[in-house]
């Protein structure tokens, strides 16, 4: 009986079920026969969407079908008693099959064919008898063990099929064969699509029958039947899966229904049936992808019925129906969305759930209004038999009454009383809350956070109304944050007021304190009286007394709350730790470091500002800040002794400033320390102790904080203008040490560059543990530069520790020196770091660093040239021919350089031809851009195709008053060739006009072969000469041939000597390694071309001993 009210507004399950064609299955023994069981499961399980829309039902042999009603020939005297029969939909969905399939085990070649055929026929007959009068189609399926042959080949099968059909009186198309083997699933799918076709034709016939009734009806007395028939046709079309036509018939049904005149007796019935048809219409329209039509149909439907209240005594019933209409529409909508319908923010299922919840609230209100006096069910029970009524939506105490005759008033009032009684038992709040829950989740999906919050608040209110204060409190406190974030203070106050009531009723101390602190704040818009009450309650909690409840609360609720408060306050002292980080309470705090940087030996100062916006005074017992450093967190409190006794008491809108000093830890040097929190303590440890924790920056978001200082503030301390600095840097203390660094840049490449350090202790204390470290601040030059602490030149590793005394008295000085040597032209960034400890009571480590930049330049540049014995530059060496190696040193240093010494070490195959190598540049002083040159004579002894290494050139140099450095350079020469002939000429250094002189050509054959040459002497105008003009000469292997000429100079000056021409005779054989052009170049490089001829001397000239021959080898 409880469910009576539900039934009048709820939709029956048969209405909501998806209509599927019903197929009866007979002859399957699923309990005992495994084959039958597997066939049944193949058909009935796994009904996915891609399979035919049919529903299978097992029918036993003894099944009784609903009895068919006698056919009516005329409707003339028929008065319908209601609109929709309660059993009709159920009957067509689950009881009257469109098709009955008889399964029978029979193979074509069965030995007992005739007997079995007769049994099968008798089964068909008995079913047909049971279905007497119905148009249900009958089909037979033979379950066979052997696989069928292709059609037409099995003569026996076709014969027997014909005879079986005949004996069963079946159409041949209604006989099927199901081979029980591998492809059961495939056969089943094909069979069921055949059954589905049968079912469609069955429903089609049924619809035709109903349509034929129409002509017998008249509008005056058969209005109900118009609706009923149209509904039935719609439903049957749905079973036939013809959604379009079904929609059309439901529309007709709905329109016919609206034509019926509504009176008190049929109001409920019409409303109920309208709800059903509307449900079907909306659902089909969503299925037909017409969501706009569905929504407008629903709106029109609601508009039409919204004001048809019916009996005032039963108005809750109307609201229940409306609420249900909305929630069901929400369900349909949501279902459509899940199937892919796009919904938008302004049109989505949540809106309908919200409306449903609102009507549920109206229902609850009207119930409270109407049913409060009903305490018992009237006897006899007027609602007896409500679930077995013939029609939907009729009152159980007057079923089937159509006439407008006035009902029996006593019976009527009894019935109303019974419904009211049942309504009173209904759990309204649960229904409302669950509808809100549905709406909230939809609003969340459609991005309406604020609307959602509003709904959550309404839900909380419903929880409150149903006395579930704990849940209400949870919901309310969760919502607070969002309203706070957007500064909706009036709404926030509303929530706070509700929440604190809940907190009181659930005796939640923590929430109560937190909420009361917020209520006392300036943002809550409560009246001062109410704030006063809350303030008083807060003070009571601090004294462990039970707070007073709100006057508006009913006494029983109050009493219950007091019982809950007692154990909480009386057992132990309360210690509460509240994080007020993002709560806008009546206490505002700011804390700021006074400086952006503190030296490690300075005191760090934190200013704490506390503003109390409570209209009534508040007192704290302790103020402290938590400082977070990388290594640890610690708390520093305001020193109580320095405060006057009332300083921690805050009046209304009072701002106070506190200063906290502390010494930073030396471990925090170079790290940032932050204000982690500001802590205030209220109450004392023996009673109630509230530890309030504030984040260093709180308060509501401001749009333009930079404009706040324009705001008028009557107080001296303008709290709003303080912009907190919540982090500060601990830096090393500033060192007063004086460092003098003495050096002469640029450094020269390869030298030990001296840097002198002079340290002067100007601190006010002695220092100790002094350590001077030298390092490169840029790593890239680290491998190119060497460091040393002494001039001996032993490189040491970085960081280099300069040897200095570790202690230095106040005012004392000391100095040291270190050296560096660069091997590449780079800029060296050198960092000199002095760390030391101040020798005082509290030793402090100090560090002083200096960075110097040392550029490196080359001291000089060495270039080398090679010359022939005629002092001409050559590009080629010849074995045994003397070469002059000319080294030039070009000074590039800005500082004058002293070349201490130079030397040349020849390496094989080159060797010096001098007796002793003497440095010509030794002890030379070179200024910038000056060049020093010296020459070494050498000879190469071996031929080489690659450039020969001549030797090492070493320069030992220093700056003036610097350390000497040796630079070494490898000199690379040219390729060296070998030719068999060596040519030399001995000639005096100069001659005199008309004084004969002797020249001598020496031809040296170095090879082991005879060398034949044609020698010719060209004439010259400057000389007369005596000797062979042209002749052929043979030089024996490894011997020297000498050719002499007497010259008689005719003119003075630098005159060209007669030219000696050497040619290879044409007819002589090939001489290895000697060709004509080589001979030519030999002559050009070995023989001088000119000779100085002096004017005639007076007296007798000395011949030829006048001039010593220059370096010429002795000729044999």
């Amino acid at each position, binding site marked *: 009986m409880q469910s009576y009210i539900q039934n009048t507004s709820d939709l029956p399950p048969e209405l909501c079920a998806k209509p599927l064609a019903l197929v009866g299955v007979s002859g399957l023994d699923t309990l005992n026969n495994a084959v039958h069981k597997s066939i049944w499961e193949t058909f009935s399980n796994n009904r996915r969407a891609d399979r035919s829309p049919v529903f299978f039902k097992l029918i036993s042999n003894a099944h009784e079908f609903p009895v068919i009603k006698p056919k009516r020939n005329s409707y003339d005297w028929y008065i319908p008693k209601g609109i929709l029969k309660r059993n009709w939909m159920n009957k067509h969905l689950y009881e009257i099959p469109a098709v009955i399939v008889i399964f029978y085990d029979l193979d074509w070649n069965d030995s007992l064919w005739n007997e079995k055929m007769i049994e099968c026929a008798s089964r068909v007959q008995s079913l047909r008898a049971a279905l007497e009068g119905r148009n249900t189609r009958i089909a037979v399926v033979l379950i066979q063990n052997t696989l069928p042959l292709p059609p037409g080949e099995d003569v026996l099968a076709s014969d027997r099929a014909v005879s079986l059909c005949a004996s069963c009186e079946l159409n041949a198309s209604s006989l099927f064969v199901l081979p029980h083997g591998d492809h059961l699933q495939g056969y089943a799918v094909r069979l069921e699509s055949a059954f589905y076709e049968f079912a469609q034709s069955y429903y089609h016939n049924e619809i035709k029958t109903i349509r034929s009734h129409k002509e017998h009806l008249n509008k005056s007395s058969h209005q109900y039947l118009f609706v009923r028939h149209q509904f039935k046709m719609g439903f049957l079309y749905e079973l036939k899966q013809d959604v379009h036509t079904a929609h059309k018939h439901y529309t007709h049904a709905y329109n016919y229904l609206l034509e019926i005149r509504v009176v008190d007796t049929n109001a409920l019935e019409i409303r109920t049936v309208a709800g059903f048809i509307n449900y079907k219409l909306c659902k089909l329209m969503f299925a037909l992808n017409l969501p706009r039509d569905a929504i407008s149909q629903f709106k029109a439907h609601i508009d039409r019925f919204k004001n048809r209240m019916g009996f005032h005594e039963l108005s809750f019933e109307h609201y229940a129906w409306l609420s249900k209409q909305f929630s069901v529409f929400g369900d349909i909508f949501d279902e459509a969305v899940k199937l892919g319908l796009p919904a938008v923010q*302004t049109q989505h299922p949540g809106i309908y759930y919200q409306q449903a919840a609102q009507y549920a609230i109206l229902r609850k209100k009207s119930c409270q209004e109407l049913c409060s006096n009903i305490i018992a069910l009237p006897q006899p029970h007027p609602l007896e038999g409500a679930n077995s009524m013939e029609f939907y939506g009729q009152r159980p105490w007057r079923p089937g009454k159509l006439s407008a005759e006035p009902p029996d008033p006593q019976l009527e009032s009894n019935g109303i009383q019974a419904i009211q009684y049942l309504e009173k038992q209904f759990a309204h709040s649960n229904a409302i809350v669950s509808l809100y829950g549905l709406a909230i989740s939809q609003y969340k999906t459609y991005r309406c956070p604020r609307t959602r919050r509003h709904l959550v608040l309404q839900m909380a209110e419903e929880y409150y109304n149903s006395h579930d204060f704990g849940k209400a409190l949870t919901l309310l406190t969760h919502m607070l944050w969002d309203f706070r974030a957007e500064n909706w203070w009036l709404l926030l106050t509303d929530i706070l007021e509700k929440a604190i009531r809940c907190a009181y009723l659930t005796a939640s101390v923590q929430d109560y304190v937190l909420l009361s602190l917020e209520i006392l704040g300036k943002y809550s818009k409560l009246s001062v009286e109410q704030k006063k009450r809350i303030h008083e309650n807060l003070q009571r909690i601090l004294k462990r007394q039970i707070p007073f409840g709100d006057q508006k609360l009913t006494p029983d609720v109050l009493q219950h709350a007091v019982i809950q408060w007692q154990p909480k306050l009386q057992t132990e002292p309360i210690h509460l730790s509240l994080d007020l980080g993002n709560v806008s309470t009546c206490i505002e705090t700011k804390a700021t470091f006074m400086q952006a940087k503190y030296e490690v030996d300075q005191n760090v100062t934190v200013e704490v500002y506390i503003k109390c916006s409570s209209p009534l005074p508040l007192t704290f017992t302790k103020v402290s800040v938590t400082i977070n450093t990388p290594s640890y967190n610690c708390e520093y409190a305001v020193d109580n002794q320095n405060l006057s006794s009332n300083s921690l008491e805050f009046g209304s809108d009072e701002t106070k400033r506190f200063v906290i000093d502390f010494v930073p830890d030396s471990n925090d040097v170079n790290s940032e320390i932050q204000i982690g929190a500001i802590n205030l303590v209220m109450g004392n440890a023996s009673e109630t102790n509230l530890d309030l924790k504030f984040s260093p920056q709180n308060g509501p978001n401001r749009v*333009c904080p930079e404009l706040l200082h324009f705001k008028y503030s009557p107080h001296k301390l303008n709290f709003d203008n303080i912009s907190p600095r919540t982090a500060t840097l601990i830096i090393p203390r500033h060192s007063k040490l004086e460092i003098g660094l003495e050096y002469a840049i640029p450094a020269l490449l390869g030298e030990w560059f001296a840097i002198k350090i002079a340290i002067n202790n100007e601190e006010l204390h002695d220092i100790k543990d002094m350590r001077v470290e030298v390092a490169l601040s840029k790593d890239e030059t680290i491998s190119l530069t060497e460091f040393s602490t002494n001039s001996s030149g032993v490189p040491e590793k970085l960081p280099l520790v300069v040897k200095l005394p570790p202690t230095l008295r106040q005012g004392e000085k000391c100095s040291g020196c270190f050296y560096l040597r660069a091997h590449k032209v780079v800029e060296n960034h050198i960092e000199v770091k002095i760390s030391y400890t101040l020798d005082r009571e509290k030793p402090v480590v100090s560090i002083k660093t200096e960075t110097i930049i040392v550029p490196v330049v080359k001291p000089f540049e060495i270039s080398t040239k090679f010359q022939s014995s005629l002092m001409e530059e050559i590009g080629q060496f010849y074995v045994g021919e003397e070469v002059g190696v000319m080294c030039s040193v070009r000074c590039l240093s800005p500082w004058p350089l002293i070349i201490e010494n130079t030397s040349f070490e020849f390496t094989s195959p080159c060797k010096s031809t001098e007796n002793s190598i003497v440095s010509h540049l030794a002890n030379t002083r070179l200024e910038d851009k000056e060049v020093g040159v010296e020459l070494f004579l050498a000879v190469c002894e071996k031929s080489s195709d690659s450039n020969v290494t001549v030797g090492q050139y070493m320069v030992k140099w220093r700056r003036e008053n610097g350390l000497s450095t040796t630079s070494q350079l490898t000199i690379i020469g040219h390729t060296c060739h070998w030719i068999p002939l060596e040519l030399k000429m001995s000639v005096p250094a100069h001659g005199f006009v008309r004084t004969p002189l002797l020249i001598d050509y020496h031809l040296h054959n170095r090879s082991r072969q005879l060398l034949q040459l044609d020698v010719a002497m060209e004439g010259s105008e400057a000389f007369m000469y005596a000797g062979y003009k042209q002749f052929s000469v043979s030089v024996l292997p490894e011997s020297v041939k000498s050719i002499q000429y007497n010259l008689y100079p005719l003119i003075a000056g630098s005159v060209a000597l007669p030219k000696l021409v050497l040619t290879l005779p044409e007819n002589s054989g090939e001489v290895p390694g000697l060709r004509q052009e080589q001979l030519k170049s030999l002559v050009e490089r070995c023989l001088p071309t000119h000779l100085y001829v002096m004017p005639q001397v007076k007296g007798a000239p000395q011949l030829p001993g006048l001039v010593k021959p220059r370096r010429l080898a002795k000729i044999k």
Partner: protein
Amino acid sequence: MAVCVAIVGKDNSPKYFCCLNPDEELSFQYKVLSSLDVIEEKLNAGNKGTNDLRELYLGMLYSLETHKIYGYVTNTKIKFVIVVDSTNMALRDNEIRSMFRKLHSEYADIVCNPFYIPGESICSKSFDVSVKNIMTGTV
């Protein structure tokens, strides 16, 4: 005649709220707050499309059983909301539009006031009077 006018800042906090019937302020605040959802959505959608930047009027945000809510957003994202009684058929789109325009110019005046700090809630008697006049249509 409008029953409620609200000005909401760009951070969605209320800057000004005025109801003909002060007792209903709480419920109107909830309504206006809910309509901000629609405004936010429209603004987000507007960024993508090529909406006319000069069109500040957003049209009707919500049509409830009892009230209709209209919205308007300035270029600096200040939102104006007007709530009208559903039964009031005299006010058409054009009238609402002109109410918003008047409101906008009143707001511009108040922002120009050197004693007004932008971002604070508006507290001015003359503004109250002019808004009341706009609401009742006496301007």
